[in-house]
């Protein structure tokens, strides 16, 4: 899991996922 520092009460987390033969870094921004 990749995370960013919490700024302005918003958190971003990410995870690199293989989709078939390609790699997607799926990033989710959510409020705290």
């Amino acid at each position: 899991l990749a995370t960013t520092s919490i700024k302005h009460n918003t958190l971003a987390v990410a995870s690199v996922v293989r989709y078939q033969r390609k790699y997607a870094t799926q990033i989710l921004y959510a409020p705290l």
Partner: protein
Amino acid sequence: STIAILPSSLPQIHRAYMMSKIQQNQAVQKVNPISTKKSKTRWHFGIRSRSYPLDVMGEIYRALKNLGAEWVKPSEEELWTIRVRWKYGGGVKSDVEPDLMRMVIQLFQLEPNNYLVDFKFDGWESNGKGKSDDNTKDDNGQHDVEEDEISSFSAYPFLHLSTQLILELAVNS
């Protein structure tokens, strides 16, 4: 080719054009350009902690409990690993759809007094049936998701639960 960029549309030239109106005593509001400085998003592996290892583990267990998650009783060899099972709400209600997400939480020591907690997705289980959806089990009954078997996997439920856990830890601490 007569494809070109319209000179008067360039920000500097447009600004000069608008400022010239001010000289002509036309009421023009001074509006500043949006800053192009984009603070680069800095990504970290997992979440860092300066607390003592046992305190970190205690905080995580407390947060998991508050969030209604379950975990496997830690074995002697894996004191710094938590194998979590979490009922994932939302989504299409169907008994076919597995809604128990498994996650492995691992404490790492980077250097003395500098620790790191990483969350890792560990597959789905169907509710109540206890059977795992994948038929692979390693010797101590844990489930190992065959990485290459999953070709289309949505990280968003996992990412969402991770934000819930981070929020709980942030609020508690």
